[in-house]
């Protein structure tokens, strides 16, 4: 296995060739916030929280979707990046209806965590208060569009790990929303295997077990990573 070395915030780091910049950043012990990224799922670079500055590159790069290469000089914590990250979190909060006190994920919510990490104590942008629905048609789970941040983890885990592809994104722009099947009530989608992986990986209270009350969500975000690793390494291959 070849190893490459690069510099993250002035600190030298060695990572296996083919690693992402995010893996390199984490190898350096630096905590870089992400919302759309989850180990085990393909990177999409959508939440823009893990943007970093790379010397010689004019644009900011999403660490999750960029490959580390030899000799890169990477900055993860400049004043500009901090400001942009905070602004992105403000935009997340302003575009949906995120009332933590009434949410199943309160206390176990990645959006909440990121807000604390970037120091967002209020939004400079007015809340849009969109009129969004709740889908409780599934026997075991529910989808609350009010909490959805369109990270598409559910879409990817269902497609890439469970291979059912129940979830997808409909509409465009601010009207984007997660849909089940052919925009059907979730409970009517035959392809759903009731595996619950989408609920496990959801960073907020958008997907949850019906039995969960306020602040009771218990996701298992490492499950997708474990399944992907086990599959890649043929851990379940019959002899």
């Amino acid at each position: 296995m070849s190893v490459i070395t690069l510099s993250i915030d002035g600190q030298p780091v060695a990572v296996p060739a083919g690693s992402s910049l995010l893996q390199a950043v984490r190898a350096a012990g630096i905590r870089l916030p992400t919302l759309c990224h989850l180990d085990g799922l393909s990177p999409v670079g959508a939440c823009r929280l893990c943007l970093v500055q790379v010397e010689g590159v004019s644009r900011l790069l999403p660490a999750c979707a960029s490959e580390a290469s030899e000799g890169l000089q990477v900055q993860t914590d400049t004043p500009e990046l901090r400001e942009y990250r905070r602004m992105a979190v403000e935009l997340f909060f302003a575009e949906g209806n995120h009332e933590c006190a009434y949410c199943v994920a309160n206390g176990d919510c990645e959006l909440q965590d990121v807000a604390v990490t970037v120091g967002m104590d209020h939004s400079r942008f007015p809340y849009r208060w969109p009129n969004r629905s709740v889908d409780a048609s599934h026997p075991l789970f529910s989808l609350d569009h009010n909490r959805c941040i369109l990270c598409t983890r559910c879409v990817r885990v269902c497609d890439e790990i469970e291979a059912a592809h129940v979830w997808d994104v409909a509409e465009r722009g601010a009207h984007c929303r997660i849909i089940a099947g052919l925009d059907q009530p979730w409970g009517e989608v035959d392809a759903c295997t009731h595996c619950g992986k989408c609920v496990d990986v959801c960073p907020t209270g958008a997907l949850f077990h019906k039995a969960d009350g306020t602040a009771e969500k218990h996701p298992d975000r490492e499950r997708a990573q474990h399944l992907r690793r086990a599959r890649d390494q043929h851990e379940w291959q019959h002899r």
Partner: protein
Amino acid sequence: MIALPPGSASQLRCCHASGCRSAGGEALLQALQEAARDTGGTLTVKGVGCLRLCGRGPLVAWDGPGGTALFGDLRPAQAGDLVRLASPGDHEERRRDGQGSQAGSQPARGSDPIVPSTDQDTGSAAPGGAEAQPEAAMAALASQRLDLEQPFFALQRPLVLEHCGLIDPDSLDEALERGAYAQLQRCLRELSPEQVRAEIRLSGLRGRGGAGYPTGLKWDTVALQPEGPRYVVCNADEGDPGAFMNRSVLEGDPHRLLEGIAIAAYAVGAERGYIYVRAEYPLAIARMRRALAQARQRGLFGGAPGTASFQFDLEVRVGAGAYVCGEETALLASIQGRRGCPRPRPPFPAQSGLWGAPTLINNVETLATVPVILRMGSEAYAAIGTPTSPGTKVFALSGAVRHTGLVEVPLGTALRTIVETIGGGSLEQPGVPGGGALKAVQTGGPSGGCIPADHLDTPVDYESLRALGAMMGSGGMVVVDTGTPMPLLARHFMAFSVSESCGKCVPCRAGTVQLAALLDRFVEHRAEPADLQRLEQLCAMVRDTSLCGLGQAAPSPVLSTLRWFRAEYESGIAGP
């Protein structure tokens, strides 16, 4: 404008591209064809692509013994008069037997519900009127004749559009007569792919889709990828407000584009290609499909006889009409049947595009320029325009300008020449407070910016426009007069970005919504002093952090109007 073909019979060329069709061009063409049936073949009528002065459509060009005359603002009811004008012998004969006006206007009777039938139109005039009525009709036509020596035509240098408006886009034979596919055949016979790429590289051609990336360099990157399948894609997803350059090529000279794509495919070693056109261009789609079928039938594609070393075939893919699908990675996703969303680059499509294979993506105008470069030679082509922006560029001139339409000029032409000389200056708007004087020119659509009137002497090339905070874009050029508040103009473009964002990344999806809401406050004069700073900060954030070009460029109209017209934003702040 367009030279009369030597030895040709008298003919009428009626524009039946989208612009003129929307003004009744199709009904006019039908009326002309019906009226011409009685001329005994002395006059031919054909539908052609764009005749360029779109603001005066429907347009008809008459190629007669004395040269070419162009008429604008025509009505189907005038078809008979025009036919009689174009076939004078016939005209005299009809006048003698007293049927002149009736025969002339027959096809148009009842075909135009807007223009009421008059005695002149119907030919039911009092006895003796048949002599006088044609004179009046001819006088009306004379007043609609357009001066081909006027700067709008005289200062243009059509290379990409050279056959547009001259040939019937549905006729492969006409295209072949004008030299279509000659350069493709020459490439296959005489030039290696490396030599073709060298010609394009030496010509200095830059991508006409907006960013201006060197075309030769892109071709080389694709060609030099490891062995394996590769693709050529023509980006015909033109969606900028005020832009219709690509549509005119697709509708007016489809074989030119097909030849350009085939040459590109030969140069990079691709066996398959796609033309990605938005569904809003049904006429362009129909004409491209017909042209493709004709080319296949003649063996020009798909393994033509004698071209065994060049196996290439094309497909027209219709997109649903999302602006973001003009972004190359979103376009590729759409071709592959996935949601049209961009992905982070690298890898660039030249390295990993359709189904992971190296893919060359070029804009319509870029590819349509390729046969011209090969015909002229790279040196002659590079001598046009400026050293860093060689060649010609097609602009779609619209807005508050006297002459609207397609303008093809050498790059480096002063903006003033395009807007004031070719375009005839700003359109006077009596009764509009402050309306009439030229205030700015908006270039590059929602990704571009505004150039204020006092910078009109700027040469129009990639670098000069960028230095002013605008951009070439695909060539949309909207003239703005003093009656238009700039925050309102910025709001207009921001509303477009809001509705066209794919919604994948948060700065573009949610940031543009907030920008539009902030602009509303300035437009409605209820902004707070802090809103100006908030607007600038959010513009910077959306520009610097969005995933693709749509979001990165969405703040451009705001930033450029803030730069040149800041006082208008300040006046949008509500008093204490």
